[in-house]
């Protein structure tokens, strides 16, 4: 049966994916929003002016990778849950991905998890590093988890 697949190619050349040079410098937002949806809260919330949607509001968000500090304010405001923050320099071996997470129970810091790609396929083992409670962001928790750097453009989710 034919299945919808959301591999890396789905987003290739369609999103303003940060350059590898920028990714190597540290935390940066990755916005996987490739359809002309009338929506712009990511632009409104960014106090660094790093995300531009402009007019009309169906325009795709464009990231100014130099202005983006990777603060993550845009993660929980996105109604599409389509924004992640990647810290490529988390450790020598691992990168750290912060995702919006709306499931209970929340994972615990230090917990081992199975990292999944955009299609929910198992990629590698990972570890929960930080959990920001949902009360802080109108009921969206932010979960940061670490996994090998080489999967930085593959892993987008995890399961326990």
């Amino acid at each position: 049966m034919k299945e919808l697949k959301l591999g890396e190619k789905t987003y290739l050349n369609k999103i303003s994916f940060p350059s590898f040079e920028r990714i190597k410098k540290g935390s940066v937002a990755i916005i996987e929003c490739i359809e002309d949806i009338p929506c712009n809260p990511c632009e409104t919330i960014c106090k660094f002016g790093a995300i531009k949607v402009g007019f009309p509001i169906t325009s795709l968000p464009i990231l100014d990778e130099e202005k983006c500090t990777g603060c993550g304010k845009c993660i929980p405001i996105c109604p599409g849950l389509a924004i992640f923050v990647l810290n490529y320099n988390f450790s020598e071996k691992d990168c750290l991905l912060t995702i919006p997470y709306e499931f209970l129970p929340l994972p615990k810091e230090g917990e081992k998890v199975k990292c999944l790609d955009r299609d929910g396929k198992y990629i590698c083992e990972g570890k929960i590093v930080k959990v920001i409670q949902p009360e802080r962001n109108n009921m969206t928790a932010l979960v940061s988890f670490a996994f090998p750097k080489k999967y930085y453009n593959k892993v987008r989710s995890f399961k326990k």
Partner: protein
Amino acid sequence: MEEKDLVIIGGGPAGLCAAISARKKGIDVLIIDENLRPGGQLFKQIHRFFGSKEHMAGVRGFVIGEKLLKEVKELGVEVWLNSIAYGIFKDKVIGVIKDGKNILVKAKSIIISTGATENPLSFPNWTLPGVMGAGACQTMINIHRVLPGKKVLMIGSGNVGLIVSYQLLQAGAEVVGVVEIMPKIGGYLVHAAKIKRFGVPIYLSTTILEGVGKEEIEGAIICPVDENFKPIIKKKKYIEVDLICIAVGLTPLNELLYQAGCLFTYKGYLGGMVALHNENMETTVENIFVAGDCSGIEEASTAMEEGKLAGISVAEKIRGKKWEDEKDQIRKRLDDFRIGTFGEKRKLSKEEIVREYYERVKTW
């Protein structure tokens, strides 16, 4: 007989916003709603809404619902709950069953904001327990906190199917798959991505052949279709499920508008037959207005703006004043929402409705 300036039938996002806008302009408003709590579908919308700051983007639907209810209360809008408006008669007399008693209410103006109803999909065994509308399922999990099934098959990949699948995961169910007969999904890719990354498969060019079970649903047979939507039977597959959710679109709930004698037109992109209305949301029957999904299936965000437009327009007629600037701002916000691949066709259909209104009113 009770007499009111404005009676709003249906207290969902459109009706509540209409009430607030009209009340702020000094109009006495009565909302009639058949449910035990107003808010329509807002309270089961636990996800964040799209749009801009002006559309309250990034805010969850039920939070918007709470805000609207607070405002309605503070403004002193009269609300009849558990009340069914069953008919609109001559001279805008509305028949209402309120708490089991028959009451007639006479209105100067009526806004009909009755929303929509879910489309059914029939297949063998679709009448067994364990087959339900995705919207009904959403009400059960998010309002009543009852999980109607543990292993779920979702039929339809529009935004309702995708969002309810995600919310079923949040409620602790396993979604074994989303089935879509078209070669691509109907809803937003971001909503699909939300369930895909937790491993929910979305089957394209696939349909359901039948539900399986004796007393209740125990499984389903799904099957790929060819380019003419004919099932390729030899590729059919059985999957074990205890709940089949149907998310194959909505139809405007507009019986009262028919009964009131409004003229209609067919707009496929808006869900079917819809009442003609002008740029103030007034139908071809003077002083009967329409707003929200019953005037064409869209989203809560547009329903709220249409409600405001109708509420202000009623106030203009009753008070003999003009608030054109305010109305233009609302129309601009509506236009802002009706753009892009998903919104453009709805915008064109809405424009046709207004055009046909003037053509038909002239010749009528």
